[in-house]
C-alpha cells in the first residue's frame, strides 16, 4: 500500500504538534510543582516552630526566670497562632544563635537580628518587622531636623557609639557643630528634654523607651540610618521562609506588628490621645 506524501506530512506535523503540546504541559507542570505555594507540613513537618532567641535584650526578649516575654516573643507566638503550629522557644546566647540555626537545632531565629548580607549564603531573611536606625531628635517646637540644621547647634549622643561615629563623619563634611557626648544613651535625651542640647542622635529603641518614660516630652525625629530587624531561617528551608514571610506581611498590613511594638514600648495611650 502506498501512503500519499501529503498524508505522511500531516501525520508528521500532527506528531510534532502533539509532542510540543506534551512538552509544554510537562514544563508547565514542572514549573507549577516547583513554584506552587508550599503546604504547611513542608514548612513545619513536626507541627512546631522552634524559635531561637537571645532573651537578654529588652524589650525584644527577656527571661525573668519563669517565662520569656517581649516583642520577639509576641511576634513569634502570633506567627505560630496564624499558621496553626506550636511555638517552642530555645533561649541562648547572642553568639550562639546562627550556629544553632545552621545546625538545625531551631527552625527560625526571632531575636532582633539585623539583616546581615554576609550570612545570606546560609540564611534566608524575611522582610523587616522593626527598624532600629539612628534618629535625629529635636524638641517638637523646632520641627524635624536634618543634618543641614546642625551647623552652630549642639547634638547630644552616647560617647563612642555608632551615633558618635556618625556625628564625627558629619563634622568632616559640614560647618562645625558641638558634640555633647554622654556616658549613657538615655542621658542624651535628658539633655534634650532639659534644654542642655539642641538635638540628640539615638537609635529608635532608645527613643521609644525614653518616650514611654516621659510621654509628655514631645519630640520630632528624622530617620538618619536604617537598621532593619528581620527573622532568619536556614537557607534550605525555603517553605518555612515563604510561610513566615507571608504571614509577617499580613501582620504588618493589618497593624498587628505595630500594635505589638507599641504595646511593649507602652505607647498605646499616647498614640490614642
Amino acid at each position, binding site marked *: 500500500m502506498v501512503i500519499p506524501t501529503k498524508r505522511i506530512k500531516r501525520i508528521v506535523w500532527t506528531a510534532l504538534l502533539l509532542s510540543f503540546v506534551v512538552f509544554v504541559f510537562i514544563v508547565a507542570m514542572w514549573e507549577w510543582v516547583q513554584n506552587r505555594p508550599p503546604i504547611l507540613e513542608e514548612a513545619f513537618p513536626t507541627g512546631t516552630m522552634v524559635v531561637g532567641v*537571645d532573651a*537578654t*535584650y529588652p524589650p525584644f526578649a527577656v527571661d525573668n526566670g519563669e517565662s520569656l516575654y517581649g516583642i520577639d516573643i509576641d511576634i513569634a507566638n502570633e506567627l505560630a497562632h496564624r499558621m496553626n503550629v506550636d511555638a517552642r522557644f530555645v533561649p541562648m*546566647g*547572642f*553568639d550562639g544563635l546562627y550556629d544553632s540555626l545552621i545546625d538545625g537545632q531551631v527552625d527560625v531565629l526571632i531575636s*532582633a537580628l*539585623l539583616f*546581615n*548580607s*554576609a*550570612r545570606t549564603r546560609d540564611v534566608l531573611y524575611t522582610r523587616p518587622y522593626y527598624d532600629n536606625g539612628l534618629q535625629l531628635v529635636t524638641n517638637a517646637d523646632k520641627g524635624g531636623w536634618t543634618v543641614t540644621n546642625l551647623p552652630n547647634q549642639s547634638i547630644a549622643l*552616647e*560617647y*563612642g*557609639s555608632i551615633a*558618635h*561615629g556618625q556625628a*564625627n*563623619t558629619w563634622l568632616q563634611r559640614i560647618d562645625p557643630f558641638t558634640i*555633647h*557626648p*554622654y*556616658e*549613657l544613651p538615655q*542621658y542624651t535625651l*535628658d*539633655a534634650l528634654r*532639659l534644654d*542642655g542640647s539642641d538635638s540628640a542622635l539615638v537609635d529608635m529603641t532608645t527613643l521609644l523607651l525614653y518616650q514611654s518614660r516621659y510621654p509628655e516630652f514631645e519630640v520630632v525625629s528624622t530617620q538618619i540610618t536604617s537598621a532593619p530587624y528581620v527573622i532568619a531561617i536556614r537557607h534550605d528551608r525555603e517553605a518555612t521562609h515563604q510561610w513566615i514571610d507571608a504571614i509577617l506581611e499580613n501582620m504588618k498590613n493589618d497593624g498587628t506588628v505595630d500594635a505589638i511594638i507599641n504595646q511593649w514600648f507602652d505607647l498605646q495611650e499616647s498614640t490614642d490621645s
Partner: protein
Amino acid sequence: MNRRLRKLILWGLRLCGLWVIVSVFGTPSVRVTLENPPQTVDAVKDHVCVHTRLIDEVPEWVMQRSLQLVREMGADTIVEFFPWAYIERERGQYDWRQTDTIVRHAENQGLRVIARMGFVPAWARPDVADDFTTLNYLPDDSYQAFADFVATFAERYAGTIDHIIIWNEPNLAFEWGYRQPNPQDYVRLLEAVYDPIREANPDVTILAGALAPTLEPEGSPNGLSDLLYLEAMYEAGASDYFDALAVHTYGFTNPPLQEPNDNQLNFRRSELLFEIMASYDDAETPIYITETGWNDHPRWTQAVRPSQRVQYTIDAYRYADTNWDTVEEMCLWVFRYPLPTLSYPDNFTLVTTDFQISPLYYAVQAYAHGEEQEGTLWLSPPSE
C-alpha cells in the same frame, strides 16, 4: 607572504589590541610605594601593641594604611597570624607573597612583628574522606612537618620577626581540632619545634601558651581552664621549650582592677598565671599579652558601654605599666577586620573596616604619647 603567517600576524595584532583595551579600561590597580625614609614610632609608652588581621587583606594599600594608623596610634608592635595552610599549600611549595608584603610594610612603619603560627594544610592532616578535620587539627605525625615549616619561616624572617608564638589557645577543643585539649601533647609540640626554630634563628624568642581564659573543668569537651592547663604544661616539662609566655586576658564586663579569682574571668586573671609560673621558678620569664581588651557591642552579654571600654582599657594599660614588670607588650584585640562580621566581634576593633576611627583609638593614642586626657571624655549626666 604565506597566507597562514598573515593570519597569525593578524590574530597577534587583534590580541595586542585587546590587551591595550583591557589595560586602559580594566580595573586599575593602586600602586603602593613604601614610605621614604622609613617611619619610626614616636610613642613614649613602649608596651602598646595591637593584634592585626592583615593576612586576609587583599589590596596592598589597605594593609599599608592599617599599619600607618597603628604607628600613628603609638603602638610599636603588632601580632599577626601567619597560617601554615596559606603559605605551604603543597608540601615543600611555599608562597611567601602575602607574608613578605606584611613584613615589608610593618618594617617600613617601624613596627615589630610577633608572628602567631597555626592552621594545618590539608596535606598534613588525615585524609578528609577518612575523618573530617579542621584547620586546627595537627596530628602527631605532622609535628615534624610543622616544626620544619616554622623553622623555614624563622630563617626567612630572621632579624625582622624574632618572636614566634606556637599555636593559639590550645586549651580550647575548637583550637585543638575539636579534640580534647591535652597539655602533654602541646608540650610535645613545643619540644618538636623548639630546637629547629632556634637553629634557624638563634635570636628568636619562642612564645608558648596564648591560652584562652576559660573556666572549663577537667574533662570538659569544650576545653580546659587556662590555670589547670598551664600547670599541666609545667608538669610535663614545658619550661625547657619556650622563652616567653603569651597570655590572653580579657576584661569581659569587669573593670580592670577587679581582683583575680580562680572562678572569675577578668583582666587580672593573668596574675594567676604569673603565680603558677613563679611556683615553677619561672617568674622571670617574659610575658607577652598578645590579646586583651573589652567589647562594646550593645547586646553581647560580655560587653560593656563604649565609655567603659575606653576607661577600662586605659586603666588596664596604666595598671600593667605600674604592676607587671615582666610584661613586655600588651596587645589589644583587634585593630581592624578586613571584612565586618556584622556582629559583636566588630566591637573589639579600634578602626572599622572602612577606616572609621573609634574613640578608643584616640584614647590609646593619647596614652601612648604620654598625653594626659584634658577633662573627662564625656559630660556629667544632665540634672533636673
